[in-house]
């Protein structure tokens, strides 16, 4: 049985009709065309599906869309409201932390929450914070540099 859900996505209230087993990841990509959030392992291990649910980083592949009544979802597209780049996004570009780009959005969403309650983290803290996001291209070095730069406010 489909259910009707009202939720907020990237600041906009929206109504959604969902199947019982549909995940937030499926809904974001298929019903809203918000393809910044990627599908990788689809089982909560790789992190490329990471979004914010009420401000907290979660794997959207394991969030049931049916559970989202009155909840607030933020995707990479909604990171900044005004079309400008978030300091994290700028840092990723400037540091060369993006190769294929598949992990990038998920890591930025994770780092965004992390930096919201940790100012000026060191390398070890950053690596621990992004442990739930896998990257196959970069070896993480530039990613950590980018997060460190964004986190130090420089």
């Amino acid at each position: 049985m489909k259910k009707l859900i009202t939720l907020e996505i990237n600041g906009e209230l929206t109504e959604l009709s969902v199947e019982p087993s549909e995940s937030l990841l499926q809904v974001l990509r298929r019903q809203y065309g918000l393809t910044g959030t990627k599908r990788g392992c689809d089982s909560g291990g790789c992190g490329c599906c990471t979004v914010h649910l009420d401000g907290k980083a979660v794997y959207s592949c394991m969030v049931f869309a049916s559970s989202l009544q009155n909840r607030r979802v933020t995707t990479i597209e909604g990171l900044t409201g005004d079309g400008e780049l978030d300091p994290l996004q700028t840092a990723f570009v400037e540091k060369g932390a993006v190769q294929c780009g598949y992990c990038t959005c998920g890591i930025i969403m994770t780092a965004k929450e992390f930096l919201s309650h940790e100012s000026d983290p060191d390398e070890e803290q950053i690596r621990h914070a992004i442990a739930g996001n896998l990257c196959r291209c970069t070896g993480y070095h530039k990613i950590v540099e980018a997060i460190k730069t964004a986190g130090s406010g420089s």
Partner: protein
Amino acid sequence: MSLTNVKEYFTPSGKDEVLELLQTYGDSALIVAGGSFVHGLDARDLLIGIDALIDIKNIGLDEVRNTSEGLSVDALVTFTELKKAGEIKDRPEFGAVRDALEYPPLQIRNLATIGGNIASACPYFDVPTAIMALDAVVQAQGPAGSRTIDLQSFFAGLFQNALETNEFVTGITFPQLPARSASAFIKLESNANDLAIVNVAARISVDDAGVCQAARLVVGGGVAETPVRAAAAEALLEGSTLSEETVQKAAEAVGTELDPMSDHRASAAYRLAMACTLTRRAVRQAIERLK
């Protein structure tokens, strides 16, 4: 994948509604809290025959509070919330819980709940090992009322808990431990996202003279169908002054009480050897925390 065969997703707003739904759907219902292990269940064919998911996030079971029975943690408390709770952060006896909560990544900590983690009766998890060392008990609600189930009884077998079909987990309670208690937990993992190769929790309680009054050594992470208390090793620590020699003997004794499996993660021999090593380290860490 049986998950796509699910017909209904319910979001009840109170305990009574949950019990009604369990009454209606019986074995074809699955209680969902954070939902972070539903895919794990599906991958292991444990969702065959499930028609209804009952999401209990809105029934108001989301507090950590001190009661006369001890520290009560409601089922829907997430790992992130538990990490922040004052008692968990500050008290040496909860060291094992603090340690266990460091391992899952941020995205899991924000979603996973203590109730869902325990109710899964998954021997590969970390939190069950840690809380077993603290003698935690499970609170369950059924149509006849609530009841308390000790953890060893609750973990009835591989992915099998001791709940009746019409019951669900409402929380866990950490009983009051002796005044000078400390615990520690260590997980051996090959990467930050995987389940354990083996994990160990150690808890010691000592009197004013430093003599060990009670010891708990729990080995989990998949060494058996449930986490295992190494009782013979515990007995070696109890009544002792926890000298380096005694700790070493207890760590070695743990190896005689286990019969782990070999799989793609590790051989049985490696698990056995590491269980002993982790025991030694976890006990040492607990002793440090007593100071």
